[in-house]
C-alpha cells in the first residue's frame, strides 16, 4: 500500500496536477528526472503535454527511455501513461515527422483524420464519453459509459489487439484507455476528470 509512486519529469507536462491528484488520493508521489530513481521505482506515471517528437527527444537525451523500459519490461513495475504519455508508449507517431515511441503498446499514433471529421474541431477538447469493457482494472466500479476530459490532436488507432479497454468516439473511434499486464494508459487526463478520473487513478494506484 505504501508504494512510492514516481512521476517521470522530462520537462514537459503538468506534473503538478498529477502529483496533486495522487496525493489527494492518499498516496505518496515524487517527481523525478533521475534515470536511477525511475529505473528502480515501484510504479511510474508518465504524464505529458506537447509534441511527440520533442518529448521523445527529451526522454532519449536524459536516458529516461532506457530507465522506463528497465522498470517496466525488466522489473515488471506498473506504469500509466497519460495523454502524450500514453502516445509515447506506442510504436510510432507521425507528429513532428515519423518518430519511434517506447514500443510498449502495439499501435500507431496518428492525427485525427480531418476528412472523416467534417465539421469536427481539432484539437479534441473537453469531456467526452468513454465506453469501457468489463473486467478492466482501471474502470473498476466506474460506469461502462463515463465522461473524461480530453485535450489532444493525435490519438492511438484502435485495432484488434489485446488491451484496448476503452474506446472514445470523436469523428472516429480511438483508444481512450489501454491496459495489458503492467502497462496502463489513458488518452484523457484522469487528474482533470473530476471524480471519474480520481476513481480511475485510485484503481491504478490500488492495483
Amino acid at each position, binding site marked *: *500500500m505504501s508504494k512510492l509512486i514516481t512521476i517521470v519529469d522530462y520537462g514537459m507536462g*503538468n506534473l*503538478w*496536477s498529477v502529483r*496533486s*491528484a495522487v*496525493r*489527494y*488520493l*492518499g*498516496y505518496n508521489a515524487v517527481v523525478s528526472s533521475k534515470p536511477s530513481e525511475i529505473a528502480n521505482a515501484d510504479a511510474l506515471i508518465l504524464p505529458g*503535454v*506537447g*509534441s511527440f517528437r520533442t518529448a521523445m527527444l527529451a526522454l532519449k537525451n536524459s536516458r529516461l527511455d532506457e530507465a522506463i523500459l528497465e522498470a517496466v519490461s525488466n522489473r515488471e513495475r506498473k506504469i500509466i501513461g497519460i495523454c502524450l504519455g500514453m502516445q509515447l508508449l506506442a510504436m510510432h507517431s507521425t507528429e513532428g515527422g515519423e518518430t519511434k515511441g517506447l514500443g510498449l503498446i502495439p499501435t500507431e499514433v496518428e492525427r485525427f483524420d480531418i476528412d472523416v471529421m467534417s465539421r469536427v*474541431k*481539432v*484539437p*479534441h*477538447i*473537453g*469531456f*467526452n*464519453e468513454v465506453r469501457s469493457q468489463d473486467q478492466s482494472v482501471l474502470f473498476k*466500479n466506474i460506469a461502462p459509459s*463515463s*465522461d473524461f*476530459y480530453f*485535450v*489532444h*490532436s493525435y490519438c492511438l488507432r484502435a485495432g484488434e489487439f489485446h488491451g484496448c479497454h476503452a474506446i472514445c*468516439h*470523436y469523428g472516429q473511434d480511438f483508444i481512450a484507455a489501454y491496459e495489458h499486464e503492467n502497462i496502463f494508459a489513458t488518452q484523457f*487526463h484522469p*487528474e*482533470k*476528470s*473530476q*471524480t*471519474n*478520473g*480520481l*476513481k480511475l487513478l*485510485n484503481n491504478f*494506484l*490500488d492495483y
Partner: protein
Amino acid sequence: MLKKRIIFTLLYDNGQFVLSRNFRLQKVGNLEWLQKNYNFAHISFFIDELVVLDISGGVRNQSAFCETLEALAEGCFVPIAAGGGVRSVDQARSLLRSGADKIVVNTPIFSQPALLKELAQEFGQQCIVGSLDLKRTQDGDYEILIESGAYALDGVAKDELQKLSDAIVGEWYLNSVDRDGTGQGYDLELIDQLPTDCLVPIILAGGAGNASHIATGLADPRVDAVATAHLFNFIGDGLKQARSSLLLAGVELAKWPAVDALVDDCSSNQLVTK
C-alpha cells in the same frame, strides 16, 4: 459525444479576487476569503473548467499570482487556464508550472503574433486560449479592446479577426465588454465576429446571471463552452443547482459521481477529505 462545458472564471487583482462590471472592478476578498466564505474546493466539483485571470493594474507581481494559482489548483481536478499579462514564453511556463494547463492571451494576439507562434511550438496549440474583449460600437459593429479594455484596436472586429491566421490559438474566449458582470445574458452576436470557418472551440463569456442564460448560450451549436465570472450569482449551491437543472433539461454536460461517493470508495487509503 463531446460534452459542452461550464467554465468558472476568477478575476485576480493584486492579491484580491474581484467582480467586474463593464470592466470596472470591485474587490471581494483574497484567497482565504474565497476558500472560507465561498468554499471554492467544493464548488470546483461542479464546473468543467477553471479560468484564472490576473487583471492587476500597474506592474503585475507574477510570483504572487503563481502562488495563488498553486493554492487554487490543489484539490481542483478540472483543467485550469491562466493568464493576464503573459508577454513571454517564460511567463507562460511559470503559470504552467504553477498548476495551469492552458495559457490565456489577449493583447499579444495583436501586438506579439510571434509570441503566439512560440507558445504553440513550445506547449502545443491546444495550450493557447485566445481571449477577445469585444465591445459594440454605435453603428452596431464590434471593436476589439486590448490591455484590459484600455485601448480599442482600429477597424471592426470582424475584419481584424478575419486577418488572423486560423491556427494561432487552440480555443477562443469571447467576452462581451457591454454585458460583463451585468447578468443580462450572453451576447450571441459575438460569435458572428469570428470567421464562419472557425474550427477551434469557442467559449462565450460576459453576462450570465442565471442557469437559463447558460442554457441559451450552450444551445447555440457554435458554442462549445460558456464562462461566468460572477461569484455572487452562483454562490453557495448556485453552480451545483444550475448544473443539475441543465442536465435535467437535456443539455449535454459531463456527469461524474459526487465527491462523497469517491471518499467512501477510496476509504481503504487515507483520502484527503476537504
